[in-house]
């Protein structure tokens, strides 16, 4: 944002004692995200917020609650459930939706389920395509959503860095990276032809550290898996995989061991690597982040197929 003056903490009049200490940097990000959320609500016929239960989704939901306060967000939450999420994630999801009184839609690709697609036997690429990408497309078509709000950030990955805030999708849900609409100032071209849709990314300009800072400052509830605790894990292909239920086939040499681990990103447990850590509180996580020498996507198995794998998946409709 050009020319938006920084509202210095000390010069904020009217801030009552005990109100949270808020930095100008986070305030600016917050103001921009709220602006994007309100534009989405105003410009689309039937928007939906994709809720993946992770830290970014938690921030997104928090921002949506603020954007429409004292009302509720004028759109439902959609969770694409692969049936392989960590159990703690599902508990957290249902509890948050109940606490906030929000409409939660859970969609699973039943075709994939009846075919018995699982991440162990079918490999991460096929599994991700069927249970995540196809499932998301099914859910969007089923409900006729014309805008899907997601928590992706530009700092996550190289092809994400080129994504627009309002990112156009064809009627077949395809992203055409070479033919994106130019996006200038805070003006968003939201026009759609029948069947087309928009993906909207209010957190585009946030970094991973911003997310954690904001969670800390705003005291936003997150899934406890982000905090370190003793958990049963096996080491497989260089990653620490948590044995979250009995469906995980163990190899002959594998014996789950209790180790103090936490997760930097959350997804399907068989595809999400843990990191060894003793950071059991939010401030400890932020300190650990500051000193970190690896990126958060390192724990994700699905980006490793090839350097362009994310771009290809996104073109096919993956979030």
């Amino acid at each position, binding site marked *: *944002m*050009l020319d*938006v*003056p920084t509202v210095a903490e000390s010069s904020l009049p009217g*801030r009552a004692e*005990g*109100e*949270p*200490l808020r930095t*100008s*940097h986070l*305030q*600016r990000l917050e*103001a*921009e995200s*709220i*602006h994007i959320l*309100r*534009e989405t*609500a*105003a410009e689309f016929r039937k928007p939906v917020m994709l809720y993946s239960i992770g830290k970014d989704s938690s921030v997104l939901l928090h921002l949506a609650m*603020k*954007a429409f*306060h*004292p*009302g509720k967000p004028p759109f439902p939450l959609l969770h694409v459930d692969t049936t392989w999420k960590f159990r703690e994630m599902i508990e957290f999801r249902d509890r948050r939706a109940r606490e906030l009184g929000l409409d939660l839609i859970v969609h699973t690709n039943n075709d994939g389920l009846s075919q018995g697609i699982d991440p162990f036997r079918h490999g991460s690429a096929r599994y991700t395509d069927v249970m995540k990408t196809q499932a998301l497309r099914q859910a969007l078509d089923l409900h006729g959503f014309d805008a899907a709000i997601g928590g992706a950030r*530009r*700092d996550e*990955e*190289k*092809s*994400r*860095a*080129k994504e627009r805030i309002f990112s156009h999708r064809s009627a077949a849900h395809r992203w055409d990276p*070479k033919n*994106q609409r*130019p996006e*200038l*100032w*805070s*003006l*968003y*071209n939201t*026009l*759609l*032809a029948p069947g087309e849709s928009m993906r909207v990314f209010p957190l585009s300009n946030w970094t991973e550290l911003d997310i954690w*800072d904001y969670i*800390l*400052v705003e*005291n936003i509830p997150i899934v406890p898996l982000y905090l370190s605790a003793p958990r049963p894990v096996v080491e497989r292909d260089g990653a620490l995989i948590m044995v979250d239920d009995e469906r995980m086939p163990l190899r002959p040499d594998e014996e789950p061991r209790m180790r103090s681990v936490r997760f930097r990103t959350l997804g399907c447990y068989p595809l999400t690597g843990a990191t060894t850590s003793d950071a059991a509180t939010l*401030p400890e996580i*932020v*300190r650990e982040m500051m000193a*970190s*020498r*690896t990126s958060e996507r390192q724990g994700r198995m699905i980006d490793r197929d090839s*350097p*362009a794998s994310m*771009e*290809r998946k996104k073109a096919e409709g993956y979030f």
Partner: protein
Amino acid sequence: MSYHEAPSIAALDAPRLDQDDRPTLRFVTCGSVDDGKSTLVGRLLYDSKTLFDDQLDALASESKTAGTTGGDLDFALLVDGLQAEREQGITIDVAYRFFATKLRRFIVADTPGHAQYTRNMATGASNADLAVVLVDARKGVITQTRRHSHILSLLGIRHVVLAVNKMDLIGFDGDRFAAITAEYLTLAGQLGISQVQCIPVVAPDGDNIVAASTRMPWYTGPTVTAYLESVDVAGDVSQRPFRLPVQWVNRPHADFRGFCGRIASGAIATGETVTVQPSGLRTRVARILTPGGERDRAAAGESVTLTLADEIDVSRGDVLTAGSAPLVSDQLAAHLVWFDDEAMVAGRRYLLKCGTASTGAVVATLKHSIAIDTMAQESAATLDVNQIGYVHLNLDRPLVFETYRDDRDMGSFILVDPISHRTAAAGMIDLSLRRATNIHWQRGAVDKSMRARLKQQRPCVLWFTGLSGAGKSTIADLVDRRLAELGRHAALLDGDNLRHGINRDLGFSNAERMENVRRVAEIAALFVDAGMIALAALISPFRSERELARQRLEAGEFIEIHVATPLAECERRDPKGLYRKARAGELPAFTGIDQPYEAPQAPEITIDTSELSSEAACERIIGYLREHHYL
């Protein structure tokens, strides 16, 4: 009042929050192909220690396989994200990168250098405080440099770092650097770019990027990083009058009506008087809700929700203002950077978005185009992709704005093609062509509501849309007769009949179809003003045009009726023999055959005459009018 519970301050990690007060500088990089932009940005990321170990490992392995540097670290690979780019070794879209130093955070928009991608550069520049312009030391200031600098100046960039790259390839020649600097300063002076810092660099080796180069002792100025950390780009929109473009009206229950938006300029406090533009209604601010809770004051850049002391009409696209009045006009002059492959043609209609307002707009005249290399004004009939022009625009309704010089948020707009939906142009408002006082509508002593009361009906437009032969005119005619029987006052506007009269001059090109719809909408609106029920029956194939017709009226006055008879059925009936002719190729651009029909997404009424007789359709429409108290 705020949604979240305040966390205890003691729980926070105090040293971290101190560091967080670092301001953010947004800058854009531009230059020609192979000048080394991506390499420079990659080098900034690398030297700022922003990269993680796994990213460095990936860089090392990709440099060996995909790099263009013979196995050395190829920093451009950090930035060139899309597969096609890596294959071609070029950047084809804007990439946003984040890094931070001890003093500042940075968001970099890395933009491509080819001529055909000028729009991406304008995109990156639209949100930037500063630009880093790269030139190849061997080539100096070239046409692309002029072009990019011109766009930068149009987009209001006043601070430029000229990075003269590849100094190693000219033997670190200080005289050559001085000559390039002099040439660029002349250019910048012509363009009104007031602050220029020229720095000699070797991007792949890092000379003068973070650390001062030992190979160019004659250069004593700052390094790129040192300059970016210290340059003062602060504008002062907080000192300007208060402007809040209304984004969203928040009505969760009957006791709360809040107006949401991000404050474009100035500040506001509870109890202060605000004027709603363009209506001119005045009231006071009752409450200010911010993301951090309720406050008694808020300033530019904040996303807020205001409640007002009086129940007055405010909707999305209106602007809450205080202090001096903003510009309000339906005619303005602006610079356009044309993006679309389809050339701009004077007289064509586009959808204009400015702030939170949308309105139909016609380019009334193209005053001149600007030759990018020489900055000379040239007369022109059209603007092609990547051309810049100065135009006069006529808008369908008054817009609230400022000049781009004064306010980037309130002075910028985009034009969207109503058919392809492509973003056709970016615009920077130069001046208002009519004073607001001249265009306040003539309000007669007898107003619409009085006329409506006399007629004992709520005036509205019944807009019948659908394919040729769907049954629009037949049903509209029945409804007209039925209303007459009921003693109501209606007027029938039939698309075909109007083409014999007021629309006689129009053909069937997209532009002429849009003009046809616009005229019918205007006539229908006049009938509504006269307290009548207007029945408009015309194919009106484009959704955006029907939306403009809807916007021409007040809420509840536009009733869209989709006569949704399937194409096959229309073609089977073919009452005028038009489908036969179209299939024979005698009627080009016939809707449903070789021109798309964009069905309404949420029409008030849908009628399929293959399932419903015309009489039953008529009764359904009369029923709707009764149910919604039009009759």
